[in-house]
């Protein structure tokens, strides 16, 4: 069983959205289930702060030894911060996907879009757990 925190929101493509201290900004990464499926992550290609993405636009790429996967932006917004630690230690995504392995922080354009995301129960059902 993978870890699916109750207070987060999820996409069917296995990204999560986590609230931050700033109400207008969310933290985005991939789920524990996704990192387990990918295996050892060797590189995460992330955008630069200031980049804007629409709902489910590709914002980056994640490379594991056996697989490569695109990263989808769960909600429309502008990148305000990128997790630079992943540059030197991409395995953080495997070790701590909801914490130190986060990918981008995004200023959300339309908070109404959050309603389109899955809650933890729906995501658990989606991955068959």
């Amino acid at each position: 069983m993978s870890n699916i925190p109750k207070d987060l929101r999820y996409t069917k493509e296995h990204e999560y959205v986590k609230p931050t201290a700033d109400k207008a900004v969310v933290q985005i990464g991939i789920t524990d289930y996704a990192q387990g499926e990918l295996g050892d992550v060797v590189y995460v290609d992330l955008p630069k702060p200031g980049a804007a993405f629409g709902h489910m636009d590709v914002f980056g790429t994640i490379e594991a030894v056996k697989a490569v996967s695109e990263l989808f932006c769960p909600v429309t917004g502008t990148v305000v911060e990128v997790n630079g630690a992943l540059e030197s230690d991409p395995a953080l995504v495997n070790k701590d996907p909801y914490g130190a392995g986060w990918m981008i922080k995004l200023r959300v354009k339309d908070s109404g879009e959050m309603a389109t995301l899955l809650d933890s129960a729906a995501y658990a059902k989606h991955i068959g757990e």
Partner: protein
Amino acid sequence: MVDQTLKRTPLHAIHVALGAKMVPFGGYEMPVAYPAGINAEHRAVREGAGIFDVSHMGEFEVTGPDRNAFVQKVTCNDVGALRPGQAQYSALLTEQGTFVDDCLVYRFEDKLMVVVNASNIDKDWDHIVAQKGGANVRLRNISEEVALLAVQGPKAEALVGSLTAVGVAMIPYYHFTEGKVAGVQCFISRTGYTGEDGFELYCRAGDVETLWHALAGPGRAEPCGLGARDTLRLEAGLPLYGSDIDDTVTPLEAGLNFIVKLDKGATFVGLAALKRQKLEGITRRLVGFTVTETPPRMIARHGYDVFLDGRKADIVRSGTVTPTVNAAIGTTYLPVTQAKPGTKIEIDIRGKRAPAEVVKLPFVPHRTKR
């Protein structure tokens, strides 16, 4: 979802209990990685010892008075050079000299054993049966009866040695002996697919669980999946059927001249084509490359286009990133005139042209016992 029709090795339940991620491979449901992960498993083999369940591999037994002549005819290496107790790397070829499969040939006093890739068992079996003609041999496909564990790494000898009365330290590379390991009757073969010293232990399918429990675990050998097997073999420059070699390339193009014995004093399937190719000279050869961006930001994966002087030359045959080399590495075929180390190529990685450079194989030197 794992397909219901996939075959399982006798250790399937153990892999699942260990938390392995199971994937389809060669018609079998196999562990690709355990929770430790590919990189940790890879390092365990380079630094200590790892154990692989490779029971999916196929084994054919050849007995009867014409056995040596028959295997001489269906493989391109020289069976005549083998004494009982020796093994050799070889291949089954088409009449065009291309690979049906690569294989290991073991010579016993009273039989030969040919070990083939799981994905090719049925094809290989049909291929050798078709060559039987009037030869006085008995062929048995014993793939389902035989299990195989590979114990690899600098600590493999001490580990296997601690579980047997056989003097395993005295078994030279590409030799084997019969004996008990942890009470289980085995062929103990000093071979492997990692570039490290180690053993491959063939036993009866019903005994392999005992053998696994004696060898695997903390302080012994780290369970390793097919993911680490692939990164290890690619670093060691060892070819994989379906990636580096297949039925469109010959051993001469793949740089495996040492398994082609044109003058072995016997005809074999593919001989005429290879003689011709040797005379005319090959036009392309398999090379290793490293993506020249460090640290690696992209992996050149199997099937990606390879460009030389702006023109498509081939595809990536094998491609991965490995912890030992810490670079994206791979193999491809290039024209022989432009295959020297240092040659610059480009790889189309999902629309981006990544610069790469031809390097000498293997990527990591072998540390096998000679």
